[in-house]
């Protein structure tokens, strides 16, 4: 009886191609050792994280899906791999059991590479995440600052 799993990995944003290859190779090796098959290994792309992880504001996600027979030691092997071999660049990972009958299609948020122009822009970020309340409050403060500046400038002109 085969069991289908998926593992989502969050890596540092500065991950190199060599490290990506190493990660995929290690993963494949462990799955093959457990007499299973890798269904897919995808790179989602670069993302702005919801909160900083290990002081990184950005991160790259990888999703691996694989089938292994029941009763293998793969979960422990994966644990040790993430703890020892790839711990320099994999920050977080989560493994979930999938329904073998369910379709493999899924939906994910758009990465920064797919939606350019949103990088680092606070206003767009707030709008995208439905936090306009913060946007209006910050805008409400701004005119007061400008008024002060204008007043200061006016008084300066008067002096001249």
């Amino acid at each position: 009886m085969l069991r289908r799993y998926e593992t989502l990995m969050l890596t540092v944003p500065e991950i190199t191609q060599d490290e990506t290859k190493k990660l995929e190779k290690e993963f494949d090796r462990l799955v093959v050792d457990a007499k299973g098959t890798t269904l897919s290994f995808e790179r989602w792309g670069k993302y702005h994280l919801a909160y900083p992880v290990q002081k990184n504001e950005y991160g790259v996600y990888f999703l691996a899906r694989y089938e292994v027979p029941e009763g293998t030691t793969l979960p422990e092997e994966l644990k040790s791999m993430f703890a020892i071999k790839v711990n320099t660049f994999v920050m977080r990972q989560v493994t979930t059991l999938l329904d073998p009958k369910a379709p493999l299609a899924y939906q994910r948020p758009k990465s920064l590479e797919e939606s350019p122009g949103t990088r680092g822009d606070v206003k767009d970020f707030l709008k995208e995440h439905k936090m306009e309340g913060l946007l209006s409050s910050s805008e409400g403060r701004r005119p007061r600052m400008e008024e002060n500046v204008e007043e200061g400038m006016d008084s300066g002109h008067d002096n001249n």
Partner: protein
Amino acid sequence: MTKKIKLKISQRLTKKKTRRNGHGAKHCRFCGSDEQKSFLDYKNSSYLRAFLTERGKILPARISGCCARHQRAIGTEIKKSRTMALMPFTAQYF
């Protein structure tokens, strides 16, 4: 002459009637809909954001209108999504 009889209805009941008027009873959006159920996934963070408040808290079933089983499922998926930094634990630090 017939005398009009005024039936006395409690205020609470009339309020309850007006509240439900036109909307019908609340129902769970996941029950009986495989399409909606397929959206319920920790990777689909943009969809799950609809179940968060502005501050990042999980909406109660009273407001999301989900049944107990699916409300639990939403909770677990949001928590998984949070550990992977796809969704916030709280609103953005500012």
